[in-house]
């Protein structure tokens, strides 16, 4: 039915055009720029330079984003899990009301708040000192890799929790109740009954967070010093200090590859689930 196929194509055309114009075209441009040599040829010099100068920052970036993703997963499971199988009404209401707040705070605002909150003589430490929990001499500044991870987790955990709590609310409660009736404790119930049923949703949430965090410039720039730093800061620096788009694009392509690995893991998992 060529007419129907044409109609189908027509329906997807706007979406396809949008993806092509706003994603595929810039992607192709950035790969082309990353491979371009000053003399007009094609080569890997920009990647060599990116690796030479920023390999440490690449490892640092992966470490920060991976550690944040794991922590986000744990926090999200804890909150969403409690919202699903918790039994204390006031705690449930309070938690459900509170946990979403960071969703509405932009990264740059979160970073600015953390700058004064996590400093050596910042609000967090001052509160602990004033309440007598630690001594003023023992305070440490968290404005380094720890600060970046804390900011990321604070900002992204609610997003994953939102998805996860939705998925958990949708599963058949009979499975939870059956397990509870047979004497399973709540934690075991969460890990063995609830989590396996919502794992794909958790995965999607974590992958989206991973990709988002990889692209944030403000948090590593504002919260921590620049040695080492994340690739976004290096990209901005290549452009701002040297007007050097080729190496900045090479770093961009390397970031794409990092996300591609995650996407591949996710797709493989999805295919496996469909096959079984």
């Amino acid at each position, binding site marked *: 039915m060529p007419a129907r196929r044409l109609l189908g194509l027509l329906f997807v055309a706007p979406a396809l055009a949008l993806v092509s114009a706003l994603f595929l075209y810039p992607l192709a441009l950035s790969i082309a720029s990353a491979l371009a040599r000053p003399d007009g040829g094609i080569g890997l010099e920009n990647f060599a330079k990116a690796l030479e100068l920023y390999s440490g920052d690449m490892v640092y970036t992966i470490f920060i984003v991976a550690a944040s993703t794991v922590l986000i997963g744990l926090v999200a499971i804890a909150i969403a899990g409690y919202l699903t199988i918790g039994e204390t009404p006031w705690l449930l209401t309070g938690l459900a009301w509170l946990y979403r707040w960071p969703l509405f705070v932009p990264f740059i605002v979160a970073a600015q708040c953390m700058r004064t909150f996590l*400093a050596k003589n910042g609000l967090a430490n001052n509160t602990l000192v004033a309440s007598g929990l630690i001594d003023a001499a023992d305070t440490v500044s968290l404005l380094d890799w720890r600060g970046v991870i804390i900011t990321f987790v604070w900002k992204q955990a609610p997003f994953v929790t939102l998805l996860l709590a939705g998925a958990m609310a949708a599963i058949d409660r009979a499975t939870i109740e059956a397990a509870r009736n047979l004497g399973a404790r709540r934690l075991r119930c969460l890990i063995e009954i609830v989590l396996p049923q919502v794992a794909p949703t958790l995965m999607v949430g974590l992958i989206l967070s991973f990709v988002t965090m990889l692209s944030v410039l403000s948090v590593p*720039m504002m919260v921590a*010093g620049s040695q080492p730093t994340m690739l976004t800061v290096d990209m901005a620096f290549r452009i701002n200090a040297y007007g050097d788009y080729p190496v900045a694009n090479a770093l961009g392509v390397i970031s794409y590859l990092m996300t591609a690995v995650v996407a591949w893991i996710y797709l493989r998992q999805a295919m496996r689930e469909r096959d079984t």
Partner: protein
Amino acid sequence: MRMYPIVLAAALGLCAAPASAQTLNVASAGDQNMVDYVRDYLGPLFEKTHPGVKVVAVGTGPGDAGSQKIYEKLAAEKAAGVPTWDFDVVVIHQKMAGQMVGEQLLAKYRDRIDTGRLVTRDTAANALGADVAGYVMPMFHSQTALAYNPDLIKDVPESYSALIDWVKRNPKKFGYNGIKGGMSGVAFVAGWVYAFGGGADQMMKGPYDTTTKAAWDKPLADLKDFNKSVVITPGNAGTLDMLNRGEIAIGPVWVDMFYTWMAEGKLPPNMRLKLIAPGMPGQPMYYATPAKAANGKLAEEFIAMATSPEVQAEGIVKRFNWYPGIDAKYLEGKLDQAAWQKLFADISPDELASKGEPFPIAPYFNDILEAYERKVAN
């Protein structure tokens, strides 16, 4: 039908707007204080003497990044063959000014305005090695220096070498922002290379020689070692924040930001400045007008007003704590002694002349940054 008159009125309004009012677009690179200066001070002053003109101030972001954005917009408009360009006045850094003059993006206007002859500093003609004579007017001169808290530090180092010893005795009490977090850190590093790399004069005036950087291996290795005992702060503001909270005792800052923060109560009033030997860099910001500015004539009048002795005294020195862009001798009598002395309290005019250095010329500048990335931060 009832909508008709409203639509008509709106359409008439749209047509009439450009005739009754002129808009002067001022794009400024730099920190927020630069935008504030145009929006809150220069703009209203200009509007008062030019009825019907509206000054719109746009900030393009701090550091060279801000100038880069202005450059990219003008270069794109030139490449597209647009007859008149959107910005009328641009405020840019030295590094980009040279490139913009080279690519014929700016108008040669200085000789056409009265205040053009009040400028004596060589930075008005030479921007990091590029000849910009006639195309720019210095808006102000800004200087870096070490800010310190006299309550926490008694033996204030007088030079880079004394600072190294001091840091050995007081680990993690000196802080700076590396090279990716703003220009105060970049200035500290450039000063380090001037102090220990040799050939500082050639780096400031040229000619460029690719082999010079071979002499930087030892100083940069020392800097890497030095960095182990210092705090790397998040940005220009990060250094000031940490000084304010007493987390570090000393660190490089921009003099104007230092005084502004102090005036706003964001730094303890007892903090002091020290310009260490052999010297630390400073830089002007430039007023320029694009080659095809829509309101070129008005832009020149705006710059003439902004570089007049009265405005330089009241706006640049008194309100915003910058050093004047025009020769300071023309400010005599326009400024009360208190304001003058405040600006030169810690750094005397002589010290400023002997230890205030320019940044290195553009190719050396890039070499220093990249050598730092390769040898120190890596």
